[in-house]
């Protein structure tokens, strides 16, 4: 889960890192007051859980409380990646001598955590390389010591007090990374002001969802966590699919992504879903959705998902394709699918273009389907062939 900037700053400040948690406001009036209280030029930033905010117009500099009003109004009117801006932070503007990047993340190749230091901080940090860019893996039990931090700072070319301070910041960053089960922690930019002080101006934290259970106390203190904006807003169909999947903890029948096609797909498990979706497109089909089914979901869940997928306007047929199943029961899938089609008021024999779920309880599924006039395909029809058949049958005349 990702934290908002002000939440990240609060957390890092709690660990003794040089960040000042900003004032956070939810109205233009409060923004004016906050800037008046500061009594100096200020930065207003939209609180949204993703990068590229500055380039999208989510950061504004103001000199006076009056300017703060219009700036705040503009920020609150923004939709960044389809997320409405509900909170903005206000902090004093700093005169910057130098921008540094510090971060910690996972090196999945080395299977170790690592810290990064880049003297060319700011928005183009990814491009920088050479001496100014330093990285060091660290021990997951011990973290990074201050002397290791200083080695990095020195290797990057820092000297004197700044070298010592950055070394300590790196050690602290590694400590935070381990303590909060982070996936990413970064301070960018870490600014050296003209009077020689180091202060973090922006921060990102992402915490491992699988460790949420042991970070609850810490997370609760940070206030409501943001919804993650995807490339586009979730659709009504996708939200309904989430509700269906949540109605019972047994098995997965969801993870729907809506597409603009006419062939509904009931596909699984995860790997085979990806494979089948690619194959449908390659054979010229137009999927109405992506989904993942697996882990032996209940009849009710499968029925509800089937009915939902068929309710999408423009959908003409349904293809049901899974890999050779290990623990999902093919007969439960068949029964659920039939129930869903009937709930949608349709005739299974006309709607289903292919049904291919070989593996456990395959014979029982075959019998259930035969009663509804559907011929189940076996494992001798590959995932690719099944997809090809499904696309081919889109154009067959349905009596």
């Amino acid at each position, binding site marked *: 889960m990702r934290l908002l900037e002000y939440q990240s700053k609060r957390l890092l400040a709690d660990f003794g890192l040089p960040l000042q948690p900003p004032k956070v406001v939810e109205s233009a009036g409060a923004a004016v007051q906050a800037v008046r209280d500061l009594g100096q030029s200020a930065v207003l930033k939209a609180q949204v*859980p*993703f*990068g*590229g905010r500055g380039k999208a117009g989510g950061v504004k500099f103001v000199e006076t409380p009056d300017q703060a009003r219009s700036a705040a109004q503009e920020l609150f009117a923004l939709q960044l*990646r389809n997320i409405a801006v509900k909170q903005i932070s206000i902090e004093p503007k700093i005169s910057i001598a130098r921008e540094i990047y510090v*971060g910690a*993340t*996972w*090196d*999945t*190749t080395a*299977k*170790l*955590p*690592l810290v*990064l230091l*880049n003297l060319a901080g700011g928005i183009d*940090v*990814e491009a920088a390389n050479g001496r100014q*860019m330093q990285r060091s893996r660290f021990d*997951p039990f011990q973290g990074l010591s201050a002397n290791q931090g200083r080695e990095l700072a020195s290797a990057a070319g820092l000297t004197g007090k700044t070298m010592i301070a950055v070394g300590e910041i790196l050690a602290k960053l590694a400590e935070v990374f*381990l303590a909060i*089960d982070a*996936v*990413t922690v970064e301070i*960018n930019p870490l600014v050296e002001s003209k009077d020689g002080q180091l202060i973090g101006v922006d921060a*990102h934290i992402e915490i*491992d969802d*699988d*460790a949420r*259970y*042991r970070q609850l106390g810490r997370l609760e203190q940070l206030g409501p966590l943001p919804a993650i904006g*995807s*490339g*586009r807003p979730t659709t009504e169909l996708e939200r309904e699919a989430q509700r269906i999947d949540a109605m019972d903890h047994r098995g997965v029948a969801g993870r729907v992504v809506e597409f603009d096609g006419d062939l509904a797909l009931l596909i*699984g*498990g*995860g*790997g*085979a879903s*990806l*494979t089948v*979706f*690619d*194959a449908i*497109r*390659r054979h010229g089909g137009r999927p109405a959705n992506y989904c993942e089914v697996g882990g032996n979901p209940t009849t009710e869940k499968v029925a509800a998902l089937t009915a939902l997928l068929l309710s999408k306007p423009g959908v003409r047929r349904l293809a049901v394709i*899974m*890999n*050779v*199943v*290990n623990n999902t029961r093919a007969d439960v899938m068949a029964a659920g699918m039939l129930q869903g089609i009937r709930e949608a008021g349709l005739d299974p024999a006309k709607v289903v273009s292919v049904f291919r779920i*070989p*593996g*456990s309880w395959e014979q029982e599924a075959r019998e259930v389907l035969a009663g509804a006039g559907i011929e189940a395909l076996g*494992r001798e029809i*590959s*995932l*690719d*062939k099944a997809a090809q058949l499904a696309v081919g049958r889109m154009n067959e005349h349905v009596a």
Partner: protein
Amino acid sequence: MLLDPNANILVQGITGREASAMVSDMLDYGSRIVAGVTPGKSGQEVHGVPVFDTVRDAMAHCSSTISVVSVPAPAVLDATFEAMACGIQLCLIMSERVPRLDTCKILHRAGQAGCTVIGPNTLGLIRPGIAKLGTIGGRLDNVQRSFMPGRVAILSRSGGMTTEIASFLTSHGIGQCLAVGVGGDPMVGSNFTDLIRRLEDDPTTDAVVIYGEPGGTAEEQLAEHLQKHGTRLRINAFLSGQFVDDMEGVRFGHAAVIVEGGRGSVRGKTKALREAGVFVAETFDDILVGLKP
């Protein structure tokens, strides 16, 4: 080769509902499970397998070198440390949703203890005709229909696709010496590169089929390894999820980009593997190309 036919096997978390069904299927296939561990449940039996409170007690009853770990995610770190402290040499972690830091600590400790880790988040591995670890293939009849002995290894990031690929090869008369679900997490004990290194020295393996997915860097790492060291093995790969490349993602921070260098797309993985001499199948059915029955 992983999974010596004579090795004894321990199951940690054996009294769980899923583990109990798994033990029955494993025993049916000939896997030598000699003991189970669930703290607080010593004295019970699961399908005739005695249950102990600790790994140490289980080892005193009958020494094992392999442990299948099927405990709740928060207990995985402790369970695997216990196994390694008692000399387990192959640890298969089935549990899903293990915190990444715990996985890292487990792998760090395993490196020091000389223990091989498969997973977390794996359905297991199988040596067709010999034995299996985990739920891979499901019940005996399905395992026997899907897998047959031979000289091709399957390494897959998806558990379900492991069985699908084996079944497809089997139906074309191509047998397998090993099939491993390497685990679905970004960080796993044995990734493609780790396993290919082992198979390189295994005289019973001629070829390898790899199943990859979007995200992570396992495929790129393999390509880098092959560029550097070459291989005597025929390697076929199939990568699913090409459509994901076309979907707009959401960026957050720079760290992942700096470290992974823009790796992770199916397009990029395909290119890297092809440049390293791997045959990357356009369609699923093409994974057969160049594999002899």
